[in-house]
């Protein structure tokens, strides 16, 4: 398989995690501009675990996910009553504060005679677990998309479960949900925490894919992108954000022809797409239509 294609798909897979994390929060009826903070925490935590403390990959990634979840919980608690732009800017403020902490934090350890570890603005270099353990690019790609597959199945099941339906209800009409006895605060906190865990896991994978992270990568651009993937791909299904990532990456790669004008073309295409489909490509109507076609096709084979 073409190595560049492998690297593009690997990157897209990692982005899928932060896209899903923003999507989960959107289910609760609010939008977050700060998922990049949990992604960053996951990246640094997992990187420190494997590169500085000699952990293996799985526990390192788990630490990343846990760090993201814990931070998200701490953010979700004081912001329970906030909605709309208030919630969004609060998450943005937290994310920027987190980024600045990473700009100032230094934690270096001597490994084989070389200092390794986060070095403030100069970043965290040398997260070489996959190279040291001979994990090839295709294997890592399979790991990422395999994990995404598991998470997708989990989310699909969850959305059909009573808890998932309750969550969507609080997102669409919190007042009505509360009247039906749904614990609105718990749903919101749960969604935010789950989003943090997903972003943290994605961050850990990203750190190992890139072998290098620095605070500048985790700015508002990443957070707004996370939101955009879901908006573009569609909010009717967890496949939507993933589709959004692939669409975005695909569009970005195909506009390489427009060397130097890429963002102009790309930005324009996205704006036009949103006019035609304000709730993304795979919105609720499209998902219902697809489901209908699937059942029709299934009926034909009976």
């Amino acid at each position, binding site marked *: 398989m073409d190595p560049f294609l492998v690297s593009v798909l690997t990157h897209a897979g990692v982005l899928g995690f932060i896209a899903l994390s923003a999507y989960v929060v*959107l289910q609760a*009826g*609010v*939008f977050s501009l700060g998922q990049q903070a949990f992604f960053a925490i996951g990246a640094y935590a997992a990187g420190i675990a494997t590169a500085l403390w000699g952990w293996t990959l799985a526990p390192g990634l788990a630490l990343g996910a846990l760090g993201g979840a814990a931070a998200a919980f701490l953010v979700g608690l*004081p*912001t329970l*009553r*906030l*909605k*709309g*732009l*208030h919630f*969004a*800017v*609060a998450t*943005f*403020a*937290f994310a*920027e*504060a987190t980024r*600045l*902490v990473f*700009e*100032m934090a230094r934690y270096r350890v001597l490994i084989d005679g070389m200092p390794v570890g986060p070095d403030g603005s100069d970043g965290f270099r040398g997260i070489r677990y996959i190279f040291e353990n001979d994990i090839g690019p295709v294997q890592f790609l399979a790991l990422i998309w395999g994990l995404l597959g598991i998470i997708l199945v989990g989310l699909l099941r969850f959305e059909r479960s009573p808890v998932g339906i309750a969550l969507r209800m609080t997102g669409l009409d919190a007042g009505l949900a509360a009247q039906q006895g749904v614990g609105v605060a718990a749903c919101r906190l749960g969604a935010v925490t789950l989003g943090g865990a997903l972003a943290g896991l994605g961050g850990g994978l990203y750190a190992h894919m890139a072998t290098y992270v620095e605070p500048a990568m985790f700015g*508002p651009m990443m957070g*707004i992108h996370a*939101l*955009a993937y879901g*908006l*573009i791909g569609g*909010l009717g299904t967890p496949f939507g954000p993933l589709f959004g990532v692939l669409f975005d990456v695909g569009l970005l790669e195909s506009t390489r022809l427009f060397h*130097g*004008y*890429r*963002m*102009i073309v*790309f*930005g*324009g295409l*996205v*704006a036009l797409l*949103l*006019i035609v*489909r*304000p*709730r993304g490509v795979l*919105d609720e*109507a499209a998902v219902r239509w697809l489901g209908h076609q699937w059942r029709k096709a299934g009926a034909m084979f009976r």
Partner: protein
Amino acid sequence: MDFLLNTADGLLAGAAYALLAVGFALVFGIFGRLNLAFGATIMAGVYAGAFAHAHFGAGPVGAGLAVLAVSVLVGLYVERLCFAPFAAGAGVTAMVSSFAVWMQIEEAAMLALPDHTQPFPALWGDASMVIGGEAVRLDRLMPGIAAAVVVAGLWALLYRARFGLVLRAVAEEPAAARIIGAPVERLSSAIFALASAVGGLAGFLIAAADQQATPMLGMWAMTKGLTATMLGGLGSLPGAVAGGLVLGVLEAHLQWHLGPQARDLIVYLVLFAAIALRPQGLFGWGRPANDDGGARPGRG
């Protein structure tokens, strides 16, 4: 004495923030939507001024006119492409669209002027006035005065003139306004043009004071404008001004005592705490927390 000097410094810097916040507040206060391309619009205007200076030898006046004209034009482009096509309730979709256009505008500006910093003509050079025994640079003092004039003018427009009454009616009850025949689309464009002009003015004053323009201007303007708006209370014009001034003073004191990195970190922590504890703004002038103002993904 240091305290007074820092406060005065902060108020002057805050005046520029206040102008940025007013631009935000105009769009958000009236449409309930966040325009992520606002910073880029200002950057485009400022870059147009720098372009005029670099390629046509324009001085401060010529550059200023270029800044205003281009800011307004880009603002109208953003309004038509990212906001007008979406029905009420599709706030997040409009916001994401404006994000896409932000990237467009930034790339276009950087294609026109690729270097990392562009010289920008100074308005008052190093001239300063003596106030109360201290020499105050004119390029720090004038934005403060300009902000005061602009805010006073806007207040008069929105609360004293008939035009402002129609604007506010369109904002609060667009359906009713349409029924009575108010030209909602034209007014929507007018508000964006006004917000862009105010933002462009802020950008011009800042670039003239720094005597340079950099690609970071867009993100910087967004961050300061948004922070100031939220501190002062979302949706309130006086709040935007107050928020800008508070931000300026806070930054000046923090920078003096703790340096620039800690300053930014603490400002963000303060912002988070302020929104969580007093969502209606430090002075209580803004919208309450449980009003999302239509800022949700569209129901397409």
